[in-house]
């Protein structure tokens, strides 16, 4: 059967090359999209993880009032209980001095800040609700609380952008996979159509469907494999050479990254193989009814 496949590949070199190129292009684009999609997802997760609720106490808030807020926070199911940070007035001032030294050119006579809380949500989308439970919406805060912020506008914008990015890449993956599938099926159909008289003759001399189909499917398999391996090589080259020069900062950001390259490579080769073999096998069915 291998010899039959090799024979048919060499006899129909141009269509075989066309089919391989189609797989190559399809898998290359698919690889790119998967890489960017997983990267974008990881980036938006990273940005989202920066969304926090901040509770600022009055300067003269009593320990009892501070404790009351703590109790509220610890009972809130939307709050990530492992990440409720208490920032004392002294710490707050030190952080501020470090962040914005320009504000502190003159020595302050006293610490203007009260103690504060930095609260992380379980899900970034919930910052607004957590803040509202502490009166952010009505601006009627619990006793001893001066202000509650959650970067209202910034949070909304980040969440919106993240959702859009996810949606765009989701659609792109869908469109690309179906486009690649259609393209490959079409190429295979053309190559089989060109050989349908041959198939007819094979069936007339008593070949079983599998005897006819086998070499075609093997050929499709080889096309799919070759195409996707070439795509992986191309992707590897782009990753190593092109990416660092275009987007030098991307690679250096820790905590943000695409799905592992070799995992993507594996996915591509699997998809290529299945598309090749199944594509030719399924397309053949129509021509085997002689």
């Amino acid at each position, binding site marked *: 059967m291998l010899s039959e496949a090799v024979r048919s590949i060499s006899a129909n070199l141009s269509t075989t090359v066309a089919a391989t190129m189609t797989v190559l292009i399809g898998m290359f684009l698919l690889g790119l999209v998967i890489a960017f999609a997983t990267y974008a997802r990881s980036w938006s997760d990273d940005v989202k993880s920066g969304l926090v609720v901040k509770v600022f106490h009055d300067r003269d808030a009593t320990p009892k009032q501070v404790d009351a807020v703590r109790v509220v926070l610890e009972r809130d199911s939307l709050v990530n209980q492992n990440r409720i940070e208490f920032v004392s007035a002294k710490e707050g001032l030190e952080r501020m001095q470090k962040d914005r030294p320009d504000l502190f050119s003159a020595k302050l006579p006293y610490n203007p800040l009260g103690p504060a809380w930095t609260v992380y949500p379980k899900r970034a989308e919930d910052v607004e609700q957590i803040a509202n439970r502490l009166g952010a919406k009505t601006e009627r805060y619990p006793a001893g609380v001066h202000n509650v912020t959650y970067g209202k506008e910034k949070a909304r914008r980040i969440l919106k952008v993240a959702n859009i990015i996810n949606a765009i890449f989701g659609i792109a993956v869908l469109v690309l996979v179906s486009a690649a599938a259609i393209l490959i099926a079409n190429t295979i159909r053309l190559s089989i159509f060109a050989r349908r008289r041959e198939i*007819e003759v*094979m069936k007339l*001399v*008593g070949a079983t469907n599998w005897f006819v189909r086998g070499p075609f499917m093997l050929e499709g398999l080889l096309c799919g494999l070759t195409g996707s391996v070439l795509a992986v090589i191309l992707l590897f080259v782009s990753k190593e050479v092109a990416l660092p020069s275009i987007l030098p900062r991307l690679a250096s950001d820790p905590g943000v990254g695409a799905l592992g390259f070799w995992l993507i490579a594996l996915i591509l080769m699997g998809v290529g193989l299945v598309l090749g073999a199944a594509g030719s096998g399924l397309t053949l069915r129509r021509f085997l009814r002689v």
Partner: protein
Amino acid sequence: MTAVQENTLVTDSPVDLAEQAAPQSESAAAAARAMIVFDGVEKVYDPDVVALETASFVIEKGEFVFLVGPSGSGKSTLIRLLLKEIEPTSGRIFVGGRDLGRLRRSKVPQLRRNIGCVFQDFKLLPNRNAGENVAYALKVQGEGRNAIRRKVPEVLGLVGLTHKTDSYPDELSGGEQQRVSIARAFVNHPPLLVCDEPTGNLDPDTSVGIMQLLYRINRSGTTVLMATHDREMVDKMRRRVIALEDGRIARDERRGGYTTE
């Protein structure tokens, strides 16, 4: 796999026309004995082209039968029915005692391996040389390499093409291509050989050569059914003639001519 080789030398088995007139009443035993039985077979192509109208006849083992009739009279349709390429609209067909209507699709390759077929357009595989084309018919039934190496030269010798074994179809003349296709049809020594205008594309001299080849194959015991427009050949051979006209059997003569004199 090639168990069907009871090639008894029955060149001129007598066919009683009276008996054929009522094949519907024929026993199953008679159907099993005969090579081909058409029992009230009708074929209507979509939407309403009647290609064959209640055709009934029996062809015994070892016969040589011409199928004649004007273009469009249903000759090719009859042959395609025999190969189970198409299904009859009604009626039953037996080949070698097997009811084609009851033959499962998966058994069709088996049927075709036992029917050699030769066509006007040769139907050779273009990217295989003569030897490989013949070998293909053996390969499809899982014949071993040794058997292939033995049988292919033998049958190419029979059709006189030993020296063209390595030539591709487009390097062969029409007559040579037809001889390759006959070699392929005969390499399994099938009990039945059907030919659809095998000389339709060939000049008279070449046609005579092909006919002689088919005659020899028939004498070795193979039943031959041949659709043809070759008036001269039919008149000269004086074999059984089944004449179709508009899908009906107009004539069935034991030693007939192309037309009734």
